[in-house]
């Protein structure tokens, strides 16, 4: 058993203190990073609760349930920031990346503490696959929101569509890595490959953001 709340406090306090010394973009990113970690903890609570009440078999919750809960939780702060503060596109992207990075970092911290960090290749795979996957999902969400806002169709249908897209991506990754063998290698490569595919148009049209 690990004490996830204590780990969160330990990581978040220095970041929160640093907020007083930071300005503009850096402040936004660090705030989002901390929010991402809190969201990760809340998602774990919700997944655990649903897993317990629905009496799923071992491992089923991680494969089927967590993508839906985690992506639903990640969209909440992004949507709140978008609708309440109406930020510029670049700030929305920055905020979303912060949420994804914070989420992935906290998840990795808890995972390493519970499973050990003695195998470097495994840790590298964990960092490159899960870490990148959460960022890809939130960037995908943010890009979809930016597009919907740009074309003035920021509707429930559009947002739900973007959310479902990130959920299916996350669910596919979880399903592929749930079994050992070739499927897990494909699963580990999926986030990196998607990140590269997304980076090409992103870098090209960076000025538009």
């Amino acid at each position: 058993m690990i004490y996830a709340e204590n780990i969160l406090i330990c990581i978040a306090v220095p970041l929160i203190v640093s907020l007083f010394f930071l300005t503009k973009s850096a402040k936004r990113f660090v705030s989002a990073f901390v929010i991402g970690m809190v969201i990760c903890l809340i998602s774990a609570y919700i997944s655990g609760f649903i897993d317990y009440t629905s009496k799923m078999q071992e491992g089923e919750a991680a494969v089927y349930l967590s993508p839906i809960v985690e992506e639903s939780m990640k969209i909440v702060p992004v949507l709140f920031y978008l609708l309440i503060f109406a930020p510029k596109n670049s700030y929305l992207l920055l905020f979303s990346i912060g949420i994804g990075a914070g989420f992935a970092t906290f998840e990795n911290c808890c995972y390493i503490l519970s499973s050990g960090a003695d195998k470097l290749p495994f840790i590298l795979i964990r960092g490159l696959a899960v870490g990148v996957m959460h960022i890809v999902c939130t960037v995908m969400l943010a890009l979809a929101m930016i597009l919907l806002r740009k074309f003035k169709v920021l509707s429930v249908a559009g947002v739900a569509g973007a959310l479902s897209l990130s959920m299916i991506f996350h669910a596919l990754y979880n399903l592929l890595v749930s079994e050992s063998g070739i499927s897990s290698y494909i699963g580990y490569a999926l986030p990196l490959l998607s990140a590269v595919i997304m980076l090409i148009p992103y870098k090209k049209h960076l000025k538009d953001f």
Partner: protein
Amino acid sequence: MALLDSINLVIQIVLLMFVIVASVRLLKRGNNIFLTILFLFSIVSWLLSDLYWLAFDVLRSGEHMPLAANELGECAMFLLLSTAISKYKDKEEQISVFAACFASIFTVANTALWIIWSGEWLQDIVCGISLFGLLSTFLQICEEKKMLKAYVKVVMSLSAFFVILFQALSTYWHSIFIRILEDISYLIIFAAVVFFIVLAVSYMRRKVKTKPFLLSIAAFLCGVFGIYMSPGIVYCVIFALTSVAGILMFLTIRREVLPDDIR
């Protein structure tokens, strides 16, 4: 039959990959970036949904799936497609009574049947809501474009009524007569998909804009409702026709967004 299903699925995945590559190329050349990019997003969702299903089939075949994530991909597709076509809607136009009634009654009836068949309340309701979104937006646009004449509405309503009725009867009673009625309901769906595909192609050949795109969406919608209610070989046939409708959607969008002088 499982092998035929898998072959069908793999063919659809390959076709969707081609459509994605072609849509990315279209982004550079086309005028209506909004339509193309949302269509691209929706096709990516469709592809992810298919890939999920294929991965599940390979890795956990026969296992119970507590939450069908592949249906989330389908929901994403319906919602993104509905957002894409919403640009055709006239915001000042009143909501059509026929569109609202038909979409809500038909989707609720279908959702009720899915719940009876699968017993999965949550995912069937979520899927039903997203299909309602697409169907109602589509019918509203058709009304605004004056595509739905009185006799078309009557034929549509009667066909939908009989399909639902025959499917409901076959759920509770099993006799040769009911079996024939069930087959008639599949025939209606099959005829509707083929009819819309043929009509869309004929309009495309006449270089008409917008109509072929809307007709290809009609074929796709009929195919989706058909897939959800059909078993065995009928499922395979309607699944293949839905893939054709997907390709047709891309071809009609291409016509929609490319400048006239290039065509």
